[in-house]
């Protein structure tokens, strides 16, 4: 039995994405930047994909820059920006980019959300995560100072929210393929109107000089197909998964003493169940869960694979001792009742065992 509850890390490919990619991993090929018919066929594939992405994200096709994923999108949005500012609960792809640009990282409300009054008046770019990757909290995008550019990292939001609407105020929107059932290494940055970009990669001038390098045709096609499928089925997915998540969270809250949810559930996306479990260490719990077939995580991982204390929970004011017992269970487009059943069976027993033997 396998209960995969780490969809916020990555989620299985949607059949539509696989189907769209397969020809480009086989008989079809071509460099979209070329002039001949083989190249032009590849060009049509990415132009069609761009139309799909634009439609799903509520922007013009020319406003879509294909990237290698969320980190690149966040970096591309922020590098070169004047006075970038972000909240302390952002993803590291934003935090480290803001730090490198000598920008400012401002405190957030204990619910994990940034408040407009926390944003300094001289900010040149404000970056606000649309749905937090660790606790799932959804931000209402704040008003930004006159002349400032608003960027949102919507990587975790796309499965659950209509980003075309939720991020309509943003000048820059980062999305990625692999969180929505597309291939890893794909994504896009939406660039509206006045936002000026400093390219991270220069060369052949693809993507209107904003992102050079030969297009990953299979990846782009797969990403667009996943986004189409995600968008078209979103309402039913959200409704179905929210029920699963609520059953999971309520079940664990009822069966494990000393457990609380981090953040409040009605401010979260439908797929995230984020818990703080007293008197256990996440590392030990995750080991037992993995043994029992439950794939989950605590917060975020460093390159060595060791768990680092969560900067998000710290920014929300969760004491370090309690944050050591954090558990993120994240559901996705293909989560089932069986996943939840297994988790409800395994997790309370594992917690009890750790507490008994500590």
């Amino acid at each position, binding site marked *: 039995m396998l209960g995969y509850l780490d969809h916020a890390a990555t989620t299985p490919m949607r059949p539509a994405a696989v189907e769209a990619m397969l020809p480009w991993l086989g008989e079809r090929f071509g460099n979209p930047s070329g002039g001949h018919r083989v190249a032009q066929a590849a060009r049509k594939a990415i132009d069609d994909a761009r139309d799909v992405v634009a439609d799903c994200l509520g922007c013009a096709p020319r406003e879509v820059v294909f990237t290698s994923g969320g980190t690149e999108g966040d970096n591309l949005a922020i590098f070169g920006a004047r006075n970038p500012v972000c909240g302390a609960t952002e993803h590291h792809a934003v935090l480290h980019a803001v730090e490198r640009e000598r920008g400012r990282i401002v405190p957030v409300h204990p619910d994990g959300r940034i408040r407009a009054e926390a944003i300094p008046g001289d900010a040149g770019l404000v970056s606000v995560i649309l749905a937090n990757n660790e606790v799932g909290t959804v931000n209402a995008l704040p008003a930004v100072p006159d002349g400032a550019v608003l960027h949102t990292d919507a990587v975790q939001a796309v499965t659950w929210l209509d980003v075309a609407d939720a991020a309509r105020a943003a000048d820059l929107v980062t999305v990625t393929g692999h969180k929505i059932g597309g291939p890893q290494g794909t994504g896009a940055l939406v660039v509206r109107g006045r936002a000026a970009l400093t390219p991270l990669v220069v060369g052949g001038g693809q993507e209107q000089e904003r992102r050079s390098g030969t297009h990953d045709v299979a990846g782009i096609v797969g990403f667009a197909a996943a986004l189409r499928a995600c968008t078209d089925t979103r309402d039913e997915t959200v409704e179905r998964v929210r029920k699963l998540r609520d059953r999971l969270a309520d079940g664990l809250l009822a069966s494990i003493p000393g457990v609380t949810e981090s953040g409040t559930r009605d401010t979260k996306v439908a797929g995230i169940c984020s818990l703080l479990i007293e008197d256990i260490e996440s*590392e030990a719990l995750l*080991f037992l869960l993995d043994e029992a077939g439950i794939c989950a995580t605590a917060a975020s991982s460093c*390159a*060595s*694979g*060791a768990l680092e204390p969560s900067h998000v929970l710290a920014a929300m004011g969760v004491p370090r001792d309690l944050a050591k017992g954090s558990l993120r269970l994240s559901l996705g487009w293909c989560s089932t009742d069986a996943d939840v059943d297994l988790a409800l069976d395994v997790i309370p027993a594992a917690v009890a*065992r750790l507490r008994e*033997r500590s």
Partner: protein
Amino acid sequence: MKVLCAMSGGVDSSVAAAMLRDEGHDVTGVTLKLWGGPSDAGCCSVADVDDARRVAQQLDLHHVVFSFADEFARGVVEPYVRAHAEGRTPNPCIECNRTIKFDVLLRRAEQLGFDAIATGHHARSVDGGLWRGADRDKDQSYVLHMLDAARLRRVLLPVGALTKDEVRARAAALGLRTSSKPDSQEVCFLPGGGRDRAAMVTSTPGVVVEDGVTVGAVPAVELVTIGQRRGLGLRGGADPRYVLDVDVPARTVTIGPLDALLTDVVRVEDATWVDGVAPTGEVLAQCSAHGRVTPARYESGVVTFAEPVRKVAPGQSVVLYDGDRVLGGGVAA
């Protein structure tokens, strides 16, 4: 048995894991992340975790990383800094074994349902007893002396039966990427050696005194060790001079000739004994990781050597043996 094998990314623990697997144990590899920061050197660097993980993959073992950074800071680094501040000479590897590998990790392993933990130390753990490793030059029983019988029954040291050459030959035969990796030398949290240590420990300039006369100066009294000969700012010419005493509050290092350094007695503190019972009478004593073994007598906290030895720096461990069997030991007062 279900065994959790600590894999540092070095050759010894790689072979330990392979041997246990080949003996039919259900082995999980664990690499400990002990020291924070972006360091890519030392014992818990990303590169070493990579090596450990790749070896585990090759051996088809499950591999996990546990972070004990808080425990390591509290149990190893802070006492290390404190000991230097008091002019003592700490052995952080022993404290890591005492407080991390054979305490926090052992308890974690029990919590997770493992029957035993294993490491790549060169020593032998047999029926609750601890013996020197087969390779005398690589023997590490000294740094494991704090283990008691109850712990030893849950600790496997498979490479203790091999020489280092045999370990490397086995690693090569298995095609392990760690087979020719050099032995680690530095203190893991001080990859830059003395430079890192100087940055971590408060430095108080002091005077070097012989027979009440100031003869030299040192930049950091805290980093001077008893028995030390170099770095004392002395003019050359005279017979060798050795540090006899370090007095941090008085900012004074006292030196003298070799015969003044010799002693036949050392008092040990915080002693632990493998069998839980302090020995009395004839023993063998070892006072540094690869130091000489000297016949001695032990009576209630005092080791009396059969022949004069160089004074043992306070903070160093004194380990007592009966032949090749570890009796236990403590810290030189």
